[in-house]
């Protein structure tokens, strides 16, 4: 996997700052405090293109608690709340 050398330690996307870019390492849907079940959250994230190896970048964030975030996933832009983005482990 290319161009993510500067980010070595994995972290949940939900904690990343605006402007962060990296690659999806894994989905940990059970760990996010979402109101969805782990399996359902995982399915939805995949349907928006969050699969292992996908390049992601945080483009924008909201005004209240810097939430939600607008994430570029490959060539699609998706808005998610940080709560759900906790399930996306990036590096």
């Amino acid at each position, binding site marked *: 996997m290319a161009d993510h050398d500067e980010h070595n330690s994995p972290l949940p996307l939900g904690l990343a700052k605006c402007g962060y870019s990296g690659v999806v390492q894994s989905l940990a*849907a059970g760990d996010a*405090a*979402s*109101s*969805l079940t782990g*399996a359902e*959250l*995982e*399915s*939805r994230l*995949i*349907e*928006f*293109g969050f*699969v*292992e*190896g996908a390049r992601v970048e945080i*483009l*924008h*964030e*909201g*005004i*209240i*608690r*810097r*939430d*939600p975030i*607008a994430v*570029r996933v*490959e*060539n*699609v*832009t*998706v*808005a*998610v*709340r940080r*709560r*759900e983005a906790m399930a996306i482990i990036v590096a």
Partner: protein
Amino acid sequence: MESPLLHLALVGTPNSGKTALFNALTGSRQKVANYPGVTVERKEGSFVTPSGRQVSLVDLPGTYSLRGRSPDEEITRDFVLGRAKGEVLPDLVLCVADSTNLRLTIRLLLELKRTGRPLVLVLNMFDIAKRRGVSVDVARLSDALGMPVVTSIAVRKGGTADLLRLTDEVLAQSPSSPRDNLWHPLTAAELRTTQREADGIIAATVSLPERPDTWTARIDAVVLHPVGGLLILLVLLFVMFQAVFAWAQPLMELLSSGFDAAGDFVHDSLPAGLLQSFLQNGVISGVGSVVVFLPQIIIIFLFILLLEDFGYMARAAFLMDRIMGGAGLHGRAFIPLLSSFACAIPGFMATRVIDNRRDRLTTILIAPLMTCSARIPVYTLIISAFIPSELIWGWINLQGLVMFGLYAAGIVSALGMSFLIKFFMWRDYQPAPFMLELPDYKMPRVRSIAIGIYTRAKMFLQRAGTTIFAMMVLIWFLASFPQAPAGAEGPAINYSLAAMIGKAIAPLLAPLGFNWQIAVALIPGMAAREVAVAALGTVYAIEGGKEAAAQIGQVLATKWSVATALSLLAWYIFAPQCASTLAVIRRETGSTGWMAVTFGYMLALAYLASLATYHIAVAFGAG
């Protein structure tokens, strides 16, 4: 004998340009209805292929997968699988993709393949993709997917020629043995596998440019700025309401004088009597007073459709998510609530995108508080009669400002209501996730917008021609019979059934400053809010003769106090004055209880708001 009708279905992810393609293929030959039992909009159109095949095309709700998380998505799944009630299994499914963004569509397509339906992939917006440096090896993509692939430019004339030709070819091949449906709901692991497979196919057949769309990035840098973005949203809404009030005025005056002329013509060419009164006061002034508002309805839909086609609506939801979250609302509720400014019923339909039942129910309960276009006639009438047309600070029209205030009151009370609902009913409840694609910006197309406005304007005029017309006839009847005895004093309407009903309920409304004429007008106003204007016209026209009908606003200004006018405005912010809204709430929530709750709380709010407004206004000397 004509060739048998063939059934095609359009499937695609949201924002794939599916609706633009549907419009391009079927033009204005469209029928909008509902699927049985649900409020999902069923859009069907027809066209003829180059070789003369009759085709019926259904535009299915956009979806990312066939799992059917919401009622909309369930329709798409059931339709494709041939399980939808009263629908035939489609002969061919056209899967529409935005050529600049194939990733999610190809995954959906791999899932669709398992259903065994004949499929064609339509690479839509191919011109934009080319311009951005996306190149697709169509032949290889077709090989890799095992289905025909065709490019199209829905928004350009002739841009669907290849698609039409291919449709003919595919339909000409006599279906060999129909393939079996191997689809089952995919697990997360299977979804992941199909997404990987899709990524592999794209890597082999599509080359993407180095940089994403720079225009979208530049616009978003401003529009999604945490502070600037919200200010822009606010300014947009403000401009929208100023436009609704200011731009529509000349056209409305034109329409209004046209109806007056028609009324005068009838008055002059018929002998005085019941027929003359019926045509002039019942039909022409009644229907005319509603049709006059067509320009405003067109302007509000123009704004909504433009913003939606441009791609701004999803951004608005993004900006509003946490703010609305404070009131217990989901970011996705923003679009339904904004649609409710046109009419609550399409707003209810748009709540179908909210997959959580509680979030959806809250949105449905408060949507009728958003100022729908049917209130515009009432607001306009009263504002222009009682609020002077002055400029404040040289550029803000006072009438427009009051209009904005009425809209703001609706919004604030909707948010407050939502907060109360969450607080009292679902305190222990976790918010549902907000996940939404922010599509690249696209130049809205005149043709697509025009078709959208045309369909809505037609619906409004049909209503004016049917429901409202029937109500106008009824109120004319109530206001004309029994006729005044010969030599009676005062206007004839004082002897009619309408006066009896109005006077019977007037004591209940008297604390609000309403007279019996208002009480009479509110009764037919239950059918549709805007009917009240026509009803007031009828009541005062019959009471005051022809001059009163022509100048209803001026008549009201002499008959009502400012306090009464303001009280009626407050009433209209909240009152559940629309039978069809209530009927749709029952259908949407599947419960008469929720309908009763909505009716009750809105009526209570209306009464209290009017009571307070009236007494405050009187205290300030406006009585």
